[in-house]
């Protein structure tokens, strides 16, 4: 799968509409070279030989895959017009997935705060209310506990609601519904009811959003029996996982990340879904297995560039499925490399990394040459101040140091 990462200019030019409640310009997947961005330039492409190509408006230049995640050397010498698929941003990919599923199945409905007329605070549900009407795209009052419960109740009868938490952190108010009803009803009813609900929303540490809006709920939800959890990280897997989640008969909690909504990628035109339980091989390698998900994937890939320059060959796996873990892919990788580094955004105590360490140790202890290392966020409420916040989260430099330590 080829992916193209655009620079700041593109994100700025393309997401200039005012209702984008997140400051799109601030997410930067910074390639190792910095390039100047002209105001109004459509986008800049960093070529694999290091030259920077600033595009004049309207003309698509050669799209060279310059990222470190390419699994095959796909030299796209052809111009983009003959390339299959279409380019879009991650939130648009989510919207496409939602829209296609709503068209395909009339039982799919969306409920959440400001999802309808306002278009969604991250624009994931933009245009859906106009297309599908007020009964299928429901603006709820600010009452998370109730409307999540109502979504679960509706799902018990066969409807397939997609419940949006405006920020994942708000779903803490609905914890009882998610844990006791969403997770357990299939079991306690002896299989009579299935809960085909999708609970989605942005979470994770953003840019100085404050402690209560920077939560990583995957660590709190992972213990709930009966639910599935997935985390998307690229437009391709966002759309694929969204569609799979909606089609799944199990309740799925779908984790998006506040800072990833403006990632751009070219995705196929045809209908496709991603396997909910499968991990994604981002970069095959030999020396060390780096397990990650969501935003940390990009920090890892940034570190991978430095590591490659230093002579290491990391294998990067985006685990995607947070519950259950794809131990098959992970196990094969551990068998190959014998060293594991986990990079996550959860806190060290009780996070996804902690569970992953336990799972790998229990299953693959014989293959490990060194103790598993886990880099997580600090066990603190996320501070507002920018520098403090940066230190709270894992940075690429720390990943490089960790790999070097691991590979001694």
């Amino acid at each position: 799968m080829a992916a193209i990462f655009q620079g700041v200019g593109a994100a700025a030019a393309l997401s200039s509409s005012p209702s984008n409640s997140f400051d799109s310009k601030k997410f930067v997947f910074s390639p190792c070279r910095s390039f100047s961005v002209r105001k109004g330039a459509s986008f800049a492409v960093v070529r694999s030989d290091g030259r920077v190509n600033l595009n004049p408006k309207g003309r698509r230049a050669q799209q060279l895959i310059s990222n470190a995640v390419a699994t095959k050397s796909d030299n796209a010498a052809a111009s983009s017009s003959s390339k299959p698929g279409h380019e879009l941003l991650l939130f648009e990919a989510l919207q496409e997935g939602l829209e296609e599923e709503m068209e395909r199945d009339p039982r799919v409905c969306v409920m959440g705060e400001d999802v309808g007329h306002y278009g969604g605070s991250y624009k994931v549900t933009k245009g859906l209310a106009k297309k599908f009407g007020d009964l299928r795209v429901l603006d709820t009052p600010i009452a998370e506990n109730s409307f999540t419960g109502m979504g679960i109740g509706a799902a018990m009868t066969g409807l397939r609601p997609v419940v949006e938490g405006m920020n994942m952190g708000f779903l803490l108010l609905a914890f009882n519904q998610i844990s006791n009803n969403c997770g357990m009803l299939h079991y306690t009813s002896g299989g009579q009811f299935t809960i085909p609900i999708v609970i989605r929303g942005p979470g994770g540490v953003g840019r100085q959003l404050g402690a209560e809006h920077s939560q990583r709920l995957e660590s709190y939800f992972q213990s709930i029996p009966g639910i599935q959890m997935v985390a998307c990280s690229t437009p391709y897997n966002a759309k694929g996982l969204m569609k799979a989640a909606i089609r799944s008969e199990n309740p799925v909690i779908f984790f998006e990340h506040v800072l990833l909504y403006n990632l751009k990628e070219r995705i196929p035109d045809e209908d496709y879904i991603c396997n909910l339980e499968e991990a994604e091989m981002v970069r095959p390698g030999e020396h060390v297995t780096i397990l990650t998900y969501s935003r940390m994937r990009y920090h890892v890939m940034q570190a991978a560039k430095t590591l490659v320059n230093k002579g290491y060959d990391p294998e990067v796996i985006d685990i995607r499925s947070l519950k259950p873990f794809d131990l098959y892919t992970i196990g094969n990788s551990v068998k190959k490399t014998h060293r594991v580094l986990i990079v996550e955004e959860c806190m060290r105590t009780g996070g996804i990394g902690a569970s992953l360490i336990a799972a790998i140790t229990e299953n693959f202890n014989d293959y490990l040459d060194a103790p598993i290392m886990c880099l997580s966020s600090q066990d603190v409420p996320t501070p507002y101040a920018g520098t403090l916040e940066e230190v709270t989260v894992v940075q690429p430099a720390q990943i490089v140091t960790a790999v070097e330590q691991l590979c001694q």
Partner: protein
Amino acid sequence: MALSHLAASASRSSSLLKPLSSALSLRRSISGDNSPLTVETSVPFTSHQCEAPSRSVETNPKELLTFFRDMALMRRMEIAADSLYKAKLIRGFCHLYDGQEAVAVGMEAAITKKDCIITAYRDHCTFVSRGGTLLEVFAELMGRQAGCSKGKGGSMHFYKKDSNFYGGHGIVGAQVPLGCGLAFAQKYSKDETVTFALYGDGAANQGQLFEALNISALWDLPAILVCENNHYGMGTAEWRAAKSPAYYKRGDYVPGLKVDGMDALAVKQACKFAKEHALKNGPIILEMDTYRYHGHSMSDPGSTYRTRDEISGVRQERDPIERIRKLILSHDLATEKELKDVEKEVRKEESPMPEPSELFTNVYAKGLGVESFGADRKEVRATLP
């Protein structure tokens, strides 16, 4: 602000505001003037399950001028925060209070610093009215150590313990049970003080509010729940979120009062009334009918769900600062020029903070680890012998 309307409106002011007694016929220096003045509120109070207080409010020129100054300060502060946000010196979320200043100012005039106030994330002005300084506000907004929460809280987490301001909360509605808890502690220690728990029309639909209200009524707590109804919960208008937008009535068995939140004197009267009521009879709900000029937060333009005409209409007719200005002028308490001077002074104080590099130090140091973050051990390691 509608300065241009001043000349036209000054002549109309006498018809808008009917002073029952005008204590002054001559202009005089008002800096220390405490002579009583009685003014009528703009609209009568509407009550639910209780007797509404009188429309005539006791005040004095000094208080009126303080109101004017404070509200002008708050207005300028919020506008300055707006520009700082756009200049990316303030990051994350920033919810502005301009248009709603009368609620903060009027409430403060009716109570003491021993009474507690707790509110949600639109807290900059409430913090200032509780005694916070501009330095603390802007330093916190910019993430500096001099901020009221040492830069760790941000816009939504302003607190001031010594003047009983309990924040500053990001999750909608979560502060109301906290507020009832404050009231419980006050009753427990027999302080004869009350708690004002502020929330918005969006939060009024939260279940925890009704739970807390039920318990407060059961236990007779001195809790005053104040709904700052600015008619929009984020992007959703009140009629689309609430079956019954009469928030003062939604306490059902708890008495309620509807107040014009753009009239600082009405707010003051209502809060005074509420405090007396709460100390004797338990919880009461106040609904402040107010309006915010900005969008919900800085990332919301505020125009996708309401028209610009509506916003400018409210600004022209109900702006709280204008109202006080007209009142002052109609009573000849100050000249136009004096008021403009006050505003200029306020503007100077407000000029955006420069980048004070001495305020900004990298707080993260290993020794400070536990203290800066305040929560947990940084690492847990056990070495076995």
